[in-house]
């Protein structure tokens, strides 16, 4: 492998590796705009110019491959390529590119949503000049709506074309294009053909400046007020890594978090905007069905009600349960444990959740049609069921214990039958849904962004779901509710103090999960033992 000297670093990289990729590997910052690891090389912003020994012109680090020299030609007897990123020539070149980029820029950072996470701002601060030599009239163009909730501020655009390449290469939909020529170049959509694809929101994430913005987020807060929680999207079984940006216990936006083993660099718009649905119909206290509507009750009374109803309707052996493919493994695991202790019958299944066809995009990005985001994990926890619950659930009396599927449960005829035959229905849910509507008792549990625990995607990648918001009202984590029910009903004295304690138990109880420990998961997750 060629030996590259990059400033003071020496590293061996495969021949053809681009200088910029090599620099990223060793943590040398080479500023760049048009380069994006998931997109083709444009080489047009000219920000990543570096000095390569033996080449008279500065070279773009994003496009220049590391070469291999024959032994007799090695530089200093050993190097195949020597690259400098901090020489006077390089810093001068960065300065001038920034000057050009800022000529027509409105310099409106105080009102710009990108401020605080803007590469134009950051690089100008690090490498630029404080004053401008430009005294001419600036190019001024009105902003435009591009579709799918994306707006463009053309005056801030630096024409890096990341967005155009994204729509051509990743989604294959090609709505965005560069219109006109030269100084008049602008990002545009064709008349009557707006940005319209399920991944559209990503263009705002990848825009390095404040040009592409989401209407959903624009002017709502400043990025420095946001806390960034690394978490996982559970809207489908692809299990994308995300960052939840919140402030004052409110989510402002969700952005993609790079994870090569999961989603790569992007997320879909369903996952991006899903948080809004969980702000509606939030359940904050245990509710009992009354003659008219619902009656609130305390957790103590709620738990006792469950125990009473079990005694009244066939006892522990008649309890049946539905686990949820949208909740973390910890809840499903504890539900499974509880149900085993209640009876040795097969008494737990999965609640049915919508399934559509998978959507796979040209570059390989997949939106799973399985909206049970943690189906694989849930099945691992309670044991895989061959043919739904009809085959082993008879139309019998008894208490039904149900974990909701965050509004995505499908009320099939079978499910309806099960609910109708059951004597008393207890539903654990965070929000009002088609399932809580059929409940006799609703136990409020933590919502999707209030949960902690592990989730397993359809590729067998286990990731840590981190709570980004406080639970609302009296809602409790589902794993805690199940542990408390277990103690009440079976006297099981487990001492779980947090979701992580349950994870530890899973690591020991299920061999495929033995390596998926809280510590090993880190930010990128861990493949199940025996996968990948």
């Amino acid at each position, binding site marked *: 492998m060629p030996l590259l000297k990059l400033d003071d670093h020496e590293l061996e990289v495969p021949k053809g590796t681009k200088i910029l990729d090599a620099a990223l590997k060793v943590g040398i910052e080479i500023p760049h705009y048009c380069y994006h690891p998931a997109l083709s090389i444009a080489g*047009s912003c000219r920000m990543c110019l570096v000095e390569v020994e033996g080449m*008279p012109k500065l070279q773009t680090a994003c496009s220049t491959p590391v070469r291999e020299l024959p032994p007799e030609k090695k530089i200093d007897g050993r190097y195949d390529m020597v690259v400098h990123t901090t020489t006077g020539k390089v810093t001068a070149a960065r300065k001038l*590119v920034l000057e050009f980029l800022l*000529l027509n820029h409105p310099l409106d950072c105080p009102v710009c949503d990108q401020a605080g996470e803007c590469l134009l701002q950051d690089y100008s601060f690090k490498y630029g000049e404080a004053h401008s030599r430009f005294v*001419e009239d600036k190019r001024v163009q009105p902003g435009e709506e591009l579709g799918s909730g994306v707006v463009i501020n053309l005056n801030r655009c630096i*024409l890096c074309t990341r967005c155009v390449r994204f729509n051509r290469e990743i989604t294959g939909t090609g709505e965005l294009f560069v219109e006109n020529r030269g*100084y008049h170049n602008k990002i545009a959509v064709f008349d009557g053909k707006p940005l319209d694809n399920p991944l559209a929101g990503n263009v705002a994430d990848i825009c390095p400046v404040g040009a592409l913005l989401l209407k959903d987020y624009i002017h709502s807060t400043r990025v420095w007020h946001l806390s960034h929680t690394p978490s996982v999207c559970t809207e489908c079984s692809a299990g994308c890594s995300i960052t939840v940006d919140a402030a004052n216990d409110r989510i402002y936006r969700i952005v993609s978090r790079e994870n090569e083993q999961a989603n790569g660099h992007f997320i879909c718009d369903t996952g991006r905007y899903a948080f809004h649905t969980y702000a509606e119909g939030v359940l904050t206290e245990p509710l009992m069905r009354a003659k008219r509507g619902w009656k609130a009750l305390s957790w103590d009374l709620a738990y006792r009600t469950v125990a009473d109803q079990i005694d009244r309707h066939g006892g522990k052996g008649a309890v049946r349960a539905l686990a949820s493919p949208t909740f973390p493994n910890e809840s499903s695991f504890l539900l499974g444990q509880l149900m085993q202790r209640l009876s040795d019958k097969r008494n737990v299944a999965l609640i049915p959740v919508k399934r559509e066809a998978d959507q796979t995009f040209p570059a390989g990005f997949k939106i799973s049609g399985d909206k049970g985001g943690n189906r694989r994990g849930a099945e691992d926890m309670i044991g895989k069921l061959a043919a739904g619950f009809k085959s082993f659930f008879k139309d019998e009396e008894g208490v039904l214990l149900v974990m909701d599927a965050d509004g995505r449960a499908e009320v099939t005829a079978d499910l309806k039958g099960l609910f109708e035959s059951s004597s008393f229905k207890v539903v654990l849910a965070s929000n009002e849904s088609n399932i809580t509507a059929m409940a006799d008792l609703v136990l409020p549990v933590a919502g999707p962004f209030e949960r902690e625990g592990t989730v397993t995607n359809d590729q067998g990648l286990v990731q840590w779901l981190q709570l980004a918001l406080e639970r609302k009202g009296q809602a409790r984590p589902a794993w805690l509710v199940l542990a408390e029910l277990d103690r009440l009903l079976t006297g099981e004295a487990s001492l779980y103090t947090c979701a992580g304690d349950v994870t530890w138990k899973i690591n020991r109880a299920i061999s495929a999960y033995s390596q998926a420990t809280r510590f090993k998961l880190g930010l990128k997750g861990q493949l199940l033992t025996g996968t990948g």
Partner: protein
Amino acid sequence: MSDYQPILTMHAGQPGSATRDYYLANGGYRAARRAVLDMNSDDIIQMVKYSNLQGRGGAGFPAGVKWSFVPRDDKRAKYLICNADEGEPGTFKDRMLINHNPHQLIEGMIIASRAIDCHLAFIYIRGEFAKEARLLEAAVEECRASNILGKKIFGGKYDLDILVYRGGGAYICGEEMALIESLEGKRGWPRIKPPFPAIEGYLRCPTIVNNVETLSNLPHIVNNGAEWFRGIGASPDSPGPKLYCLSGHVRKPGVYEAPMGTKLTTLIFTHAGGTTEGKKLKAAIPGGSSAPVLTADEIEDLKMDFPSLTAAGSMLGSGGIIVMDETTDMVQACYNLARFYAHESCGQCTPCREGTTWLTKVLRRFTQGRGRMEDIDLIGDITDNIGGLCDFSKGSFGKTICPFGEAVSWPIRAFMDKFRDEFEAYLPKEEAA
């Protein structure tokens, strides 16, 4: 005038010179027939390499060497593209060659195609040349009808067709990578090199792009030999006939064929009849508008070939000579060129997209008498920042993907440096003091 007998333009002005029958009656297609039936790829490449034929489009890269970069034993199709996207201000030789002798070009293309094993070649002609495109199409049709193009041409085993492709109006498409993109039906944004087109060009296949004049030389090299070609002009390193385009303040503007290395003063004063109304010569742009302007003093004894012009701090480029007499306002001329380049910048690279328009705005302000002393240095800085320092001894230092950055920077810089007094004279009184 010398006793030089024109080669490329020997039939110019003859009635019917654009027809196949005229061309055949005057020995046309003998060279192509030979290349197809009696020569192989190596023979042709060796011959053209030895001839030292340099590309006539502007860069002067040896044609035979370029061809030799095309990979052998490569399953991909190979393509030849004739670059007839003539748009460099001051240049109009390709149009003349096409109008007077399209078959000489087609013959050259057959030879070059044979050299690189190409079976489908293109003539990318600038869109404005609608008449010339029709003429070429008619010429190609004549060839198809007589087995000069098509299947098994000249009765041999070699197939070749040529398509005439009209551009859409963009100077940058004269740059080979932009041309290829445009030919693929995309915007003419130059691609990053490497890979060079000989390795990955049109549809990612090996592609050679040659200028009209370059290709038109080939029949003569095949007919008369490389040695003969090397003997034309002042130096065997940069030999051959050359078409010089004279425009601007000359009595008889036009295309003149003369040997490589003919003196610029000879071209201006003998061929083109001197300056209009005999006014004093102030300056000349020697190789199309991208070539740095030369003052009357610098022109003395200057030979028009690739090495001599590089040594003089300019370039032979396309051979488009724009002559400016003493009445010329150099600030206006400089602004005119800056505006041209701003209009033609493709806008892909930051420095060129932003810088060309900045230059134009500053220069426009100058011409309106609103210049500032500091703008003079600013203009110099902007040009350096787009195209790099205009220092030929150190090679080019452009900061853009394609050579357009240099092409705009060098001439503007030269105007500024050489006619600084005229720029200063444009300053408002309070600034000049």
